[in-house]
């Protein structure tokens, strides 16, 4: 395992080209094209039914695609059966084999590859050490906690040193605290092993935490691909802007040159790109000062979130803006009914065409 961590240390590049998957009248995947770099941690993020699992299933060979092709390291794999694709996979419900103990579960992929029993068990033990459960080899899966099952499933998926690891909502069944702890561990394991990871989640926080790049999907299509920062700061579409984090979305009305009129808010000195119909403003970049101004509002709601306080304010022209402020010593808090003014910085506005 140590050798694997240092020696192999290279994932495979995966290319999806023009994948299309139709179930009856449902289009599960449409024009799905994607290039995943070697050793990259890529996350497919999208609402339920957006085709994330379908994309993974196509790569794993569980479904026959309607059209399109997939290559691993430039080699087309469409003709290869699942068991020859050499892909590691962690399922949402772990899918440990209930009749085998932990060590035999982890040794399973090695046994299938013809590794003798003793050697397979030794390597399985090394993988178990890696996920920090060295003492658990003799337990049956039903004797493990959710987090332990998760780690065993991970060990089983990487023990044969696959160059691509697929994870379909691997933390979906865990509670929030455990999920956050496991996110850090997964990231750490991946750095040690160096394999390419394609990760599926519909939790945007998880995607932002783990990924090198995020693919936002909806209705079987790729909407945007980018680093977490790009996706967060520069969403291309209204859907992405609304799906990731909280955003104020305002219709844009054409104003004078060099002026953007945000409906229900007011005019801002910003150049409106051609075709822009929406303006997105993150709550945390929006600053509010007590008092009156050109864009003034009344606080209608105060939500305490621990380290930050989120406010809702109704502008005099009708729109409601959400903004958040850190709780700093001496920082002024706004009360419901208080008057605030927004000095909106044009650089914080993201204009969206659709």
């Amino acid at each position, binding site marked *: 395992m140590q050798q694997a961590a240092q020696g192999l240390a290279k994932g495979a590049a995966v290319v999806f080209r023009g994948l299309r998957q139709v179930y009856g009248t449902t289009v599960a995947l449409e024009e799905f094209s994607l290039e995943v770099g070697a050793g990259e941690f890529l996350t497919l993020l999208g609402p339920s039914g957006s085709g994330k699992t379908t994309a993974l299933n196509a790569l794993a060979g569980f479904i026959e695609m309607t059209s399109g092709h997939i290559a691993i390291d430039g080699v087309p794999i469409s003709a290869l059966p*699942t*068991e020859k694709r050499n892909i590691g996979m962690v399922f949402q*419900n772990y*899918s440990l*084999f209930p009749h085998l103990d932990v060590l035999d579960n982890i040794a*399973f*992929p090695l046994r*299938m590859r013809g590794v003798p029993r003793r050697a397979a068990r030794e390597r399985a033990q090394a993988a178990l050490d890696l996920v920090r459960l060295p003492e658990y080899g003799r337990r*049956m899966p*039903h004797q493990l906690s959710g987090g332990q099952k998760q780690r065993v499933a991970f060990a089983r998926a990487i023990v044969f040193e696959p160059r691509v690891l697929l994870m379909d909502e691997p933390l979906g069944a865990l509670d929030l605290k455990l999920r956050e702890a496991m996110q850090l561990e997964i990231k750490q394991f991946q750095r040690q092993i160096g394999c390419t990871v394609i990760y599926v989640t519909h939790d945007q926080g998880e995607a932002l935490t783990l990924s090198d790049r995020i693919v936002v999907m909806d209705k079987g299509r790729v909407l945007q691909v980018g680093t977490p920062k790009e996706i967060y700061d520069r969403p291309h579409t209204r859907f992405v802007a609304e799906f990731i984090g909280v955003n104020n979305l305002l219709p844009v009305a054409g104003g004078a040159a060099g002026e953007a009129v945000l409906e229900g808010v007011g005019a801002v000195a910003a150049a409106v790109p051609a075709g822009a119909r929406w303006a997105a403003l993150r709550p945390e970049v929006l600053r509010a000062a007590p008092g009156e101004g050109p864009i003034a509002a009344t606080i209608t709601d105060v939500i305490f979130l621990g380290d930050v306080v989120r406010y809702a304010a109704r502008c005099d022209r009708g729109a409601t803006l959400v903004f958040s402020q850190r709780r700093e010593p001496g920082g002024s808090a706004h009360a419901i009914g208080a008057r605030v003014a927004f000095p909106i910085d044009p650089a914080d506005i993201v204009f969206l065409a659709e």
Partner: protein
Amino acid sequence: MTRFLLGVYFAIAVAFLVMPLVLLVPISLTDSQFLEFPPRQISLRWYREFFVDESWVGATLLSFKVGIGATAVALVVGTLASVAIVRGSFPGRRLIHALLVAPLIIPTVILALALFIVFLRWKLVDNVPALIFAHAVVALPYVVLIVSSALRSFDTTLERAARVLGASPVRAFFAVTLPYLGPSMFASSLLAFFASFDELIITLFVSGGLQTLPVRIWTDLMLRLDPTVAAAATMLIVVSVIGMAIAEYFRQRNVRRYGG
């Protein structure tokens, strides 16, 4: 489903086996020539009689032979048929399922008559393999019902997991699916075995001179009645209770492992 059928089996067992047991055990232990209750003198005389009498021993051995043979045939055919019915996507799956389960519903006399006609035509009367086949027909519904319902409740992502980890489809079935089906297969073979072991009517029609244990008991009832019958019956009860206990143990273990 397995649980339900085992429950039904249990209720029937209680009604038809355990209740008479109360009478049978003391009767079998009598020292007298006749069936008497309560016995005046306790002895194992009729148990000895059972093992000394060649016709009893021969009938028992034949019953075991036919029972095991019929169970093996029903188990293999029934499991394969279940896989085809549950996993396949060919037309007529439901029809095949109905046909395989039919012997459980069709009155046994009719089935016996049909088999008798076929056996006469192909000169199969008085033939042990043919008798095994006839019993397998009766045993098959239990296997098909139990195994196909277990297969339906099986989480196929386990098979997918095995596939992606390097197992061919056949290997994945043997490595992952079959262990899950194990307890159901065991329970259904138990039911299949006793379906054959108990079977009297069809056997009377098609066996010719062959005497299975039920036939032996039946002829005994026609001719003379001594407590050997009670001794044989008591031993049968003990064997079936042990079998059911083992089946229940495996079923519970599966429930623990795979969840309810």
